[in-house]
Structures are given as C-alpha cells and as structure tokens.
C-alpha cells in the first residue's frame, strides 16, 4: 500500500511482537504460547552465543558443504541473449536443497532446549528429508507429516525419510498437501508440547519462526553477495527466487534488501492459471488473513475459509506465504509474480539440456521468470537466481506429465 512509510532499513524486522508491518504475529492456541516464548528466548541467547554460531558454521562447512558455489550459467546466458545469469547452487547442499540450512540451525536449538523428539511438516519432501537427516545426525526420533497427495508424487523422498529412520505420517485431510500436513503437525505439537520440538520448514508460522528460519537461510544471500562482488566487482541488478512458504527466497533476498539498486523478485506458483482456484499465488491473487500462527496473504474465500490451491510443484503448493514477504510486497520493496505449471516445466527442460543441471520444480518457477526477463535486459546486467534444489525427486512427476516411460 502506497501510504505505508518507508523504513530506514528493510532488514530490521520483525518488531518484538513478531510483526512485519501488519503481518506476522503469534496466532496460536494458549497451549503453545509458553513454548514459543521459550523458543524466542532461547533463540535470542543462541544468536549471541559464539559457541552456537561456531557449531553452526562448522556443520555448515563440513556437513552441508557450504559455501555453495555461485555459478555463471554461460550457455543459458548466451541462449537468452541478455543479462548475465548466475545461479546460487543450493541444490548442491547435502540432501539436495536449501532446507538443510534451516534444519541444522533448528536442531541445535532443539538440543539446547532439551527437547527429545522432532516433528516436521513437508510438501515436496525436501524439508522432511532434511529434518530426518539432522534427526539421525543428532540422534532424535523424528515424525514427518506429509499430505497423502504429496506422499504419492514425491515417493523417492518418502523412501529417503524412512531410510533415515523417520516415521512418515500421510495426512488425508483436505487435498492432502502442505497446508494439511502443517495442521496435523500443529495438532501433534499441542499434544506433545513438553518433549517435542516443531521444526518448521519455511519462513512462516508464529513468531519467532519466520525470523529464525530467515536468519538460518540468510547464509545463502550473505554468501551470494560476497561471491558476486568477487566475481563481478559489483552487486547484481536483480535477485530472483521461487516462493512457497518463502524460506529460500527470504534467505537470498534479505542480505540484499538495503541495496537500493538490486531489484527483488519472488516467483509464486501460478498453477493452471490465476482465473480459478488452481494456483498458489497468495500475494498476486490472495488477501490478508490469519493461518498457521501468522497474518499474511492467503488464498481464501469471502468467508475466510482457506482454499487448497494447486501447483505442479509440491513445495510451492501452499495457500500462504511467509509474513515478511507480505510486508515486502506491501511496502513495494519486492515484486511477486506468478509462473504457470507449464512454464516451469519448460524451464526445467531448458536448464537440463543447456547446463546439465536437473533443477527441482520449485526453482524451475524462478528460472521461468529469468527466461522471461533476461532477454529484455542489457548484456552488462546481472541476475542472481536461487537454485534452491535439485530435481531428482521430481523425475517421476515430470516423466508422467511429459508422457515418458521410465
């Protein structure tokens, strides 16, 4: 909204009540309130504890494989004939996506808080796999809630989670996607509040989750900023990322928010088009509301009932978005655009053939936007895109859509 005054810094949020403008907050049942206040207190301490930061950094280097490379996509750049395109290679991380950055951070918090059991929700299964991974690494039992539809379309990840020792519980409520998995995880949490740590997979949920997930993911943007300065001697003109709940996007955006010359673009799942309800473009086609602990843009009807949405990509199939994105949209610092299923599928194939990288369907949405924008930009301009995950998990879905036999 235009009348909102511009803050001095775009990086100072949230306020002490967890608000980014009108977004965010702590909309949870009383049972959970003491726990999220504890978590906030623990996070405040951990943030400023050098030994915590050191453990986090060590695990980042030796377990995740950080820093991830910033890769100049030469052939794609040539093919599109415009701006220079760089990928932040989060798909090379251990477990194959950015999700592990957050999981390592939160498991250390869980350990500090003396919790003994981990629960998580997952859509694409990347967060479920990353959660099961850190649970195995730190010796916690782990339960992952996953929509029944997603269990089917992300079968390889379900198997990986089971191998890692996690229990995967399919959720049949609603459309059986990420939103329903999150409801079920919250129900588990209120029931087992004493011993259980809820490892939320995206920059959403009640305060302090959007903040702490962002902080753990901001390593992406911090590295990318240094790497592009090193490679090009200047900042990029544009940073692009796909937005499901918004964690990979806020992770790469946040360190660039106060760089006025850097255009920030979030890509939402346009599904089968914005006319009907078969999309997940919460900002482009939704309205502010309250779900899963925070106020944010949501897909909902006139009565405030949440809609299910649709995306070819399980990781973007969520009717909300992290509250900080809603705020960045309203104050005009970032722009959010939809990409349709078929555009993402085309982009998926382009990257595979031109660069020898099989991307996940989630960042394929960001890539489709790059493919639209780069040709219209000058050759001396630079785009940095977050390549948030690899596509191994999606090959069955893609094969089915393309009518290929496996």
């Amino acid at each position: 909204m235009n009348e909102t005054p511009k803050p001095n810094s775009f990086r100072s949020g949230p306020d002490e009540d967890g608000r980014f403008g009108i977004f965010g907050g702590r909309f949870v049942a009383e049972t959970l309130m003491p726990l999220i206040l504890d978590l906030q207190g623990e996070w405040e301490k951990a943030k400023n504890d050098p030994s915590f930061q050191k453990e986090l950094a060590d695990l980042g280097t030796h377990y995740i494989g950080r820093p991830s490379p910033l890769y100049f996509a030469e052939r794609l750049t040539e093919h599109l004939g415009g701006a220079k395109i760089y990928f932040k290679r989060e798909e090379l991380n251990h477990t194959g996506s950015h999700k592990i950055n957050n999981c390592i951070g939160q498991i250390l918090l869980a350990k500090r808080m003396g919790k003994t059991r981990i629960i998580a929700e997952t859509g694409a299964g990347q967060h479920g796999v990353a959660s099961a991974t850190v649970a195995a690494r730190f010796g916690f039992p782990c339960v992952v809630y996953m929509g029944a539809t997603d269990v089917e379309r992300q079968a390889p990840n379900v198997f990986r989670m089971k191998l890692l020792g996690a229990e995967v519980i399919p959720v049949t409520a609603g459309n059986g996607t990420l939103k329903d998995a999150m409801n079920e995880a919250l129900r588990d949490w209120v029931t087992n509040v004493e011993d259980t740590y809820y490892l939320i997979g995206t920059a959403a949920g009640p305060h302090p989750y959007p903040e702490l997930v962002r902080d753990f993911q901001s390593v992406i943007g911090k590295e990318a900023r240094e790497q592009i300065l090193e490679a090009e001697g200047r900042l990029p003109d544009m940073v692009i990322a796909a937005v499901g709940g918004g964690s990979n996007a806020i992770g790469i955006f946040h360190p660039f928010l106060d760089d006025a010359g850097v255009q920030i673009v979030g890509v939402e799942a346009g599904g089968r088009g914005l006319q009907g309800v078969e999309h997940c473009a919460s900002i482009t086609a939704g309205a502010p509301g309250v779900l899963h602990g925070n106020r944010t843009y949501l897909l909902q009807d006139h009565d405030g009932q949440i809609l299910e949405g649709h995306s070819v990509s399980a990781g973007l199939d969520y009717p909300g978005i992290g509250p900080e994105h809603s705020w960045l949209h309203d104050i005009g610092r970032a722009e959010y655009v939809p990409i349709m299923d078929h555009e993402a599928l085309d982009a998926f194939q382009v990257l595979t053939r031109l660069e020898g990288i099989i991307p996940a369907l989630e960042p394929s949405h960001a890539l489709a936007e790059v493919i639209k924008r780069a040709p219209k930009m000058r050759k001396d301009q630079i785009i940095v895109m977050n390549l948030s995950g690899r596509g191994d998990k999606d090959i069955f879905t893609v094969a089915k859509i393309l009518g290929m036999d496996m």
Partner: protein
Amino acid sequence: MTVRMDKRFAAVKAEGRPALVTYFMGGDPDFDTSLGIMKALPGAGSDIIELGMPFSDPMADGPAVQMAGQRALKGGQTLSKTLDLAARFRETDNDTPIVMMGYYNPIYVYGVDKFLDDAIAAGIDGLIVVDLPPEMDDELCIPALAKGINFIRLATPTTDDKRLPTVLKNTSGFVYYVSMNGITGSALPDPSLIAGAVKRIKGHTDLPVCVGFGVKTADHAKAIGASADGVVVGTAIVQQIAGSLTKDGKAGPDTVASVVTLVRGLATGVRAARLVAAE
C-alpha cells in the same frame, strides 16, 4: 459479564451445581437441523451454549470436530449464517447465554467491528477464539470487551502460575480450562489432576472456571463437575450428530432427538456432581 451470563452462573450456583456447557458446530449438518438442535439444548439441560463457527483449518481440533466443520461448510454455512442461527435462537430464548467458538480468520475477514456489532445484535454473550492468545489482545479481545461482549480465554496445563495472570488479565465471563495438552476429542485425564488445576486457577481469579476437552459421559460430567463451576461437552455431542446422519451425510430422522437424549444424560451428571463432592 453480560447480564445473561451473570444470571446463569448465579442461578446454577444457587442450585448448588456446576453449569452444563454444550458445544455443537453451527450449520452441522445443515442450518435448519442445527437451529433445531440449538433450540432443544436448554430444555435438555444445557445451561450455556457454545456455538461453533466452522473453519477450514481447525488446528486445535480432533477428527470429530474437523468433520463437523467440513459438513457445515459443505452445507453452505458461513459466519454470517452462524450469527443468524444465534439471532433465530434468541427469538424464543432470551436467557441462555451463547458463546461463539472458533478461529480468528473468518472473523478477521468479516471485519472485527462489523462482526462485534452483528454479534451483539444477534444476542451473543461471549467469544472463544482459539488462536488469539493474550499477546494478540488488540485484535479482538479489547474491542469485544469495549462493546460489552465477554472474551473467554483458554487456560491449559502449560499455563503455569507465572503465565496465569497474563491469561486472566482480559478474560471475562468464565475461564475455560482445557483439561490436557492436546486437541478436542482426546481421552479425559485423571479428574483429581483437573481438580488441582481448577483450584490453582481459582487462586488467581473470581471468575467461574469451566472445564472441557475429554468430557463425554454423565460420569465424566459428574466427576469433573465436583470441582469445576461448569463442564463443557463438545466432541461427544458432535459425534452423536455424526452417528445420526444418513449415509450421504444428511440429517437423519433422529438427529435432534439423539442429541437431546445425550444432553439429558449429561445434565443428570452435573446435577449429581456436588453430591459426590459432599460425600
């Protein structure tokens, strides 16, 4: 407190028994049946009515209440129809307090001021909004209190003595003690633990303390009612409704009657409660 709420708690106290608070989902399985159920509740022995507002994503509810909400939404229920349900009930009953219970988003989307005005016009006495803890009081609690509608807060086993004052600060009408950490429809914990918790809460407030979550039978009502000022029954009623429906989920011939039978039984439970306490 609204006059109706005050009077009702005073009346049951004079009878030397706890109040029976009954929850059902507005619009389950359809508007007319739901109105029939609501109108029959006081006669069956319900002292206070909790009118559920259906929501697509009821994060604190178990399968029974989730499905009731889905049935209601499928039957076309909306927040404005739930308000209408209360208004229609008020045409013939101006004494039984009505508390609307649900989640914040439908109210937020309806518009808080408009909702409160319409709720007052419909004869609503109180609100329970599961996902609005004290930290979010500016959203609805403060405006509701300013307009004279009770804001009834949930206290839970995780609400320790340090936190209780925060929870009680802007609470009015009654305190709803949730008997366990969990969702609606779970099993009832040991009544003696609950009695201890009620006593602890009463050490911090003069408001009546009602206990819910897990109360399903007359015996439960009797046991819990020995220490509480009110006993809340929800899932059992919702399940009774579910069990009475036809195969395609429509109201059956006995839907209203079966709820009445259940509530009558529960009412004998609360009426026997203090006898146990006196024993």
